């Protein structure tokens, strides 16, 4: 039985889980110029769990994800994948790691010059020694898993947004990964399609036994799929815990603690609360400073 902790208090860390995390992030800092996007993020992902990372637009969710998949290198702190510090890996070794995880990008990121089937076949062709006939069968299986077998010979431009995500998902799981990453899987989809994608993600996670890291700001989707949730705000982890904690917070009254109330407002989608107040204040300061700059 796993013991979860509610808020980010580190003294509980020890009894959190006996298993080795597949991803371990400690003190991750990322700056673009003088703009600090991530300021000391800690994060663990355990085998087989579905972790949902939430946060407002521009709070650094995609940036965090890109550190996990190796697109960005941390300015400070460490990112460990499968117990290995990724900063110590050379390109070839990292490429081997990349074959152990799959990524579904926001737009599906299918290669537009290839059919859906060829897209799914590509990682198999490049990274395995399987012959074409075997690859063909595997592509059919993967497409069947995501309910897209009839679309194998279509071009990406001929299929809908939801189908593109399914196809991207089939491609992401083609090498039987141990971790799946999703960036805003339900963005730009209607509620029904989005729910379908959610169930597909849960289905794959169960069937393949993979750990999943999902970045989203859709609360319905987050509460549907998450085992554990993390709330990111201005580059910090505000809250980290099991879904039940977040549900409890969402349904509770105001707590009076600023961090909790910020999370609560986000979860409820309220138009009033700490997030709104912060925005108004910062806008006011900017306006005054701008006006003052214009005086002389």
């Amino acid at each position, binding site marked *: 039985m796993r013991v979860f902790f509610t808020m980010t208090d580190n003294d509980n860390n020890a009894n959190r889980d006996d298993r080795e995390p597949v991803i371990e992030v400690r003190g991750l800092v990322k700056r673009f110029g003088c703009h600090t996007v991530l300021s000391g993020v800690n994060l663990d992902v355990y085998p087989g769990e579905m972790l949902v990372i939430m946060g407002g637009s521009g709070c650094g969710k995609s940036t965090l994800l890109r550190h996990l998949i190796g697109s960005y290198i941390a300015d400070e702190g460490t990112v460990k994948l499968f117990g290995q510090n990724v900063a110590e890996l050379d390109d070839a070794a990292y490429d*081997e790691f990349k*074959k152990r*995880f799959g990524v579904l990008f926001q737009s599906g990121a299918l*290669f537009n010059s290839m059919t859906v089937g060829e897209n799914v076949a590509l990682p198999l062709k490049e*990274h395995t020694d399987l012959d074409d006939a075997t690859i063909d069968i595997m592509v059919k299986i993967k497409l069947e898993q995501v309910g897209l077998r009839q679309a194998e010979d279509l071009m990406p431009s001929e299929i809908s947004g939801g189908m593109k995500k399914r196809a991207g998902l089939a491609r992401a799981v083609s090498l039987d990964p141990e971790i799946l990453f999703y960036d805003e899987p339900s963005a730009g989809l209607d509620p029904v399609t989005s729910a379908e994608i959610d169930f597909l993600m849960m289905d794959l996670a169960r069937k393949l036994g993979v750990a999943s890291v999902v970045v989203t700001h859709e609360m319905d989707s987050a509460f549907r799929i998450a085992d554990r949730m993390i709330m990111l705000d201005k580059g910090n982890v505000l809250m980290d815990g099991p879904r039940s904690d977040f549900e409890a917070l969402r349904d509770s009254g105001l707590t009076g603690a600023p961090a909790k109330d910020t999370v609560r407002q986000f979860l409820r989608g309220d138009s009033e609360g700490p997030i709104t107040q912060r925005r108004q204040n910062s806008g006011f300061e900017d306006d005054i400073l701008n006006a003052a700059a214009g005086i002389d």
Partner: protein
Amino acid sequence: MADETNLKLVERIGARTIGAARYVGGASLLLASTVGWTFRGLVSPKVRLDHRSLATQMVRVGVRSLGIVCLVQGFIGVILALQMEPPLKQFEQQSQIASIIGVAGFRMLGPIFTAVILSGFAGASIAAELGTMVVSEEIEAMDAMALNPVRFLVVPRVLATLTMMLLLTPIADMMIALGGYGISRGVLGPSVYNEYWKLMQNMLTYPDFFTGLTQGGVFGLLIGLIACYEGLNVRGGAEGVGRATTMTVVYSIVAIVLAACTFTVLFYVFEL
């Protein structure tokens, strides 16, 4: 006050210089990586070159621009002949139009105009294509799948612009010569066209052809490289893609002219 403006100017020149150095450096790294992957594609059985995508790119770069190259180069021949006839006629030397068109066309005008056409035709579309792939996260997806974008995208495109320039340059040379001949038959009269081909053959040497061809190849390399570099470095959505397409054409033409000038100096010094 004046000091301040000067300082701003110096700052701006400095920033431009650093920017240019960074650009050249980045493009050189891309070139090195492209050469590396091409080499590995040729020798290592595990990293095979993708013949199908190379063929696709060659068709897109070369075959589709063939018509416009022929058209433009034919007219260049016409223009040269018509422009040179009056001054040469003063010295009764109008038959030498053939020699001059031959040398100018084979050595420089063939490759350089073809390259300019190709930079607008193929370079711009390569930049737009790769830029769109960046915007739609396709490049990131490749990277996440441990598929190297240089190997899969840049190598076939650069090889295609390079080989297509090598193939188009002789065709362009011929079209310039033909254009000159055509207008001589139509307008300038037998004093020009009677001995046209003979005079051109007498004048031309192998170095004329091969220096032109070498330059054509280098121009092709530059176009492919700049287009891929611009495309892969797109930032900021559709606007960025538009900017990359424009800058590909601008930088390609600048690079082509600089390379042509360098080659001309070298060929002059070594009497090629």
